[in-house]
């Protein structure tokens, strides 16, 4: 049993690393990787355009950029989790074609995503060896596994209890299991996608240490993150992406968080924005929130939205912006006070919020906004069926008219109202999701990612609609991953970072650089 013996796993070793995997630490080499001319589109949105990059063996290479710059997509393409539309990937100089993470593993490439790919009810040991169990003829040799586990745990300097059930572990420890799992597969290049996003500061520091140890042990790491401090402290090389294009690659020692933010600036916008019409200064306050908290998502949030005003909430993914909007709408519980039209909102549920005149255009129209299997008309009148029914009975003719008028007002081009909403294009679906809140004009619209994944024409139409609504006296809270969208539409911008308001910028103060520095925390 104690014989470290030859590795009996049937898996081929395409890189031709000699000797038994892992039994000798010396001599391992990280994989060098290069991408050439990578293109990727998601429907109408361009994620990556002609990206070419080199990742040297055994370095920690950061990919940074604004939301939607394409950094996560590039990481996923390298790890085979996403297929590029064009371009090639080379590992140690050899072109590879992998179509799945499973393929990528054969080339020694692995990814640790934000959502872990663990089997939560299995033990740490079982998870680490899942799919590459040691043993013979279908029988698992646990003793051998435990031995190898101890060896690997030693190597990277942490040791979760092998028999612990993964579900019971903290996020940080689950992540360590993910790392061990990569090592057991002899991964020579690991992509880490926002690895510290869900960790406390202490845990994050520990992860940085582990990552360094991985590098020293000969693993190449591609580190995708928007926490610039970590990137500068950890990485050897930094690449900045913007709008899916490569901006620059430089040694981390030559960069500062200032210089990185500067490189991200000037993100081009593919759409023109309507000219903003500022609301009068004495416009009444529609929404006032004070001391709103829902730890750990957000804390101590206070701001106001006036009638006719579009307030933009700018922040990175995970900064708490979506959670703030959901809490105001009553979809999630929270501490603090919410006032609508000067009156405190005590009953917090979507139902009572809607009755008081709030509307939430949620982040994901497919999962939260629309019932995809139901027809268009039912979706549009869903939140206000009462307006097209009498004593509980639907007035079908009236409904048809109301739906038709509302869809027209949002410029949705749709066929029959009785078609399932899933048959519409993304842009028209989004217009339908918005139309749902215009059957009865609200006082406050919370618009979360109102233009995600829709084409340029539909984007412009949504911008015009939001502007029109504000001009009619609605208060609008606008959330978007595209900073340009927030800056282009909002009269006032509130920057949030790590669940707190870090800046508020009215009109001309709200320039791209200031807001971007605030959301990245490099003031």
């Amino acid at each position, binding site marked *: 049993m104690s014989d470290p013996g030859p590795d009996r796993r049937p898996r081929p070793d395409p890189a031709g690393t000699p000797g038994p995997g892992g039994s000798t630490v010396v001599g391992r080499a990280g994989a060098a990787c290069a991408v050439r001319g990578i293109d990727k589109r998601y429907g109408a949105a361009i994620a990556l355009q002609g990206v070419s990059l080199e990742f040297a063996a055994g370095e920690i290479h950061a990919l940074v950029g604004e939301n939607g710059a394409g950094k996560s997509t590039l990481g996923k393409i390298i790890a085979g989790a996403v297929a590029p539309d064009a371009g090639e990937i080379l590992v140690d100089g050899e072109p590879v074609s992998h179509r799945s993470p499973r393929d990528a593993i054969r080339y020694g490439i692995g990814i640790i995503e934000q959502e872990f790919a663990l089997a939560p009810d299995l033990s740490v040991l079982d998870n680490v060896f899942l799919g590459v169990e040691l043993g013979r003829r279908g029988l698992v040799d646990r003793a051998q596994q435990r031995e190898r586990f101890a060896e690997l745990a030693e190597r990277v300097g942490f040791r979760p209890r092998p028999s612990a059930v993964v579900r019971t572990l903290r996020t940080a420890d689950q992540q360590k299991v993910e790392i061990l799992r990569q090592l057991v597969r002899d991964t020579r290049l690991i992509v880490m996608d926002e690895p510290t996003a869900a960790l406390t500061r202490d845990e994050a520091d520990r992860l940085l240490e582990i990552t360094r140890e991985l590098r020293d042990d000969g693993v190449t790491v591609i580190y995708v993150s928007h926490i610039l401090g970590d990137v500068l402290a950890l990485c050897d090389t930094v690449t900045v992406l913007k709008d899916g294009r490569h901006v620059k690659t430089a040694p981390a020692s030559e960069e500062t968080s200032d210089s990185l933010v500067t490189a991200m600036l000037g993100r081009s916008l593919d759409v023109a924005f309507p000219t903003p019409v500022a609301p009068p200064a004495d416009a009444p306050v529609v929404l006032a929130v004070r001391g709103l908290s829902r730890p750990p998502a957000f804390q101590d949030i206070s701001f106001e939205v006036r009638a006719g005003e579009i307030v933009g909430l700018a922040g990175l993914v995970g900064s708490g912006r979506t959670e703030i909007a959901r809490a105001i709408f009553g979809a999630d519980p929270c501490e603090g006070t919410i006032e609508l039209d000067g009156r405190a909102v005590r009953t917090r549920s*979507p*139902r009572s919020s809607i009755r008081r005149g709030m509307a*939430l255009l*949620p982040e994901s129209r497919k999962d939260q906004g*629309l019932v995809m*299997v139901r027809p268009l008309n039912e979706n549009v009148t869903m939140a206000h069926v009462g307006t097209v029914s009498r004593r509980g009975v639907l007035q079908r003719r009236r409904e048809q008219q109301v739906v038709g008028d509302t869809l027209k007002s949002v410029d949705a081009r749709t*066929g029959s109202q009785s*078609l399932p909403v899933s048959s519409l294009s993304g842009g028209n679906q989004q217009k339908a999701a918005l139309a749902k809140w215009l059957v009865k004009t609200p006082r406050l619209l919370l618009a979360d990612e109102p233009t995600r994944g829709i084409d340029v024409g539909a984007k412009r139409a949504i911008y015009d609609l939001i502007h029109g609504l504000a001009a009619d006296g609605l208060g609008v809270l606008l959330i978007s991953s595209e900073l340009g969208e927030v800056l282009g539409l909002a009269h006032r911008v509130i920057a949030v970072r790590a669940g707190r308001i870090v800046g508020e910028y009215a009109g001309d103060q709200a320039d791209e650089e200031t807001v971007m520095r605030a959301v990245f925390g490099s003031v």
Partner: protein
Amino acid sequence: MSEQGAAPLRGAVSRSPLASVSGTVELLREYMIVVCVVVLFLVLTFTSDTFLTSTNLLNVLQQVAPVGMVAFALTFLLIVGEFDLSSGALFVLTGVLAAKLQPHFGTWPALALATLAATAGGLINGLLVSYARINSFVCTLATSLMVAGLSNVITKGFLVTVDDQGFFALGTNELFGVKYSIWILIVAAFACGFVLSRTKFGRWLYAVGGNPEAARLSGINTRAMKVAAFTFSGLAAGIGGAIVVSRTATGQAGNGIDVVFGAFAAVVVGGTSVMGGRGAIWRTALGILFLALITNGFNLLQVEPVYQSIIQGAIILTAVAIDSLSRRAT
């Protein structure tokens, strides 16, 4: 009673790439049950002399009335995204209770009280599923066991026979030459169809089953919808049980508990989705008819009854496979 008429047909055509496969599956899912019922009806008409007689057809309807009631309620539950295994047990409890209570309260009050008890059972199921957040399958399996046990306690294992001839009224009396139970089934079909397709409540049921999160964010009280559907399921089981007991005037624990399987078969064969948000009463009505015609046909053509359940099982599998394939296609 109809859902959106020919609309999905056009939807299938407009989805261009690879649409031929998913389109065909979609079309099958939409209208297969109509074709099946029509074909079966014609086949039986031509192969059996006794099939197309009013005696036979009324007999078929009378036989399916109890299971039909349960199936209509189950349609509501599947649409709202839940399931009820306990309606069989509640169905039996109603019969036992009615027979037991009849000597004390008289025929109609006894039937009403027994039905009310079943309704209360449904309400409890609904509260457990909605507020204690117990999976509806597990919850109703457990309550089903409890209710079945209760029926045994009440009967102490014996048959409960009612001597009063007036007790047979609901099950055997006729109006315009058609039995009460058939009238109840027909009225229930139209009422349920109306509620589902023409009322605010029906809309909300579809929304909750189709996407609970979107429904909640639209201000719909998703829990109340589920409680209502379960309560209705209890009521329907009660009515079904009342019909059966007043046909035989005998309450027997354990007899008829499998009515829920026949009802479930009818609902899915009709094309109501087991994944929530899609379905209609006319579908269930045709599903009931289809299964009843198969049974009737087997009897008329003197096929061994043992083959019937094999064929029924195969039909259910086919129906569910088509539902699941069409979901994947969209």
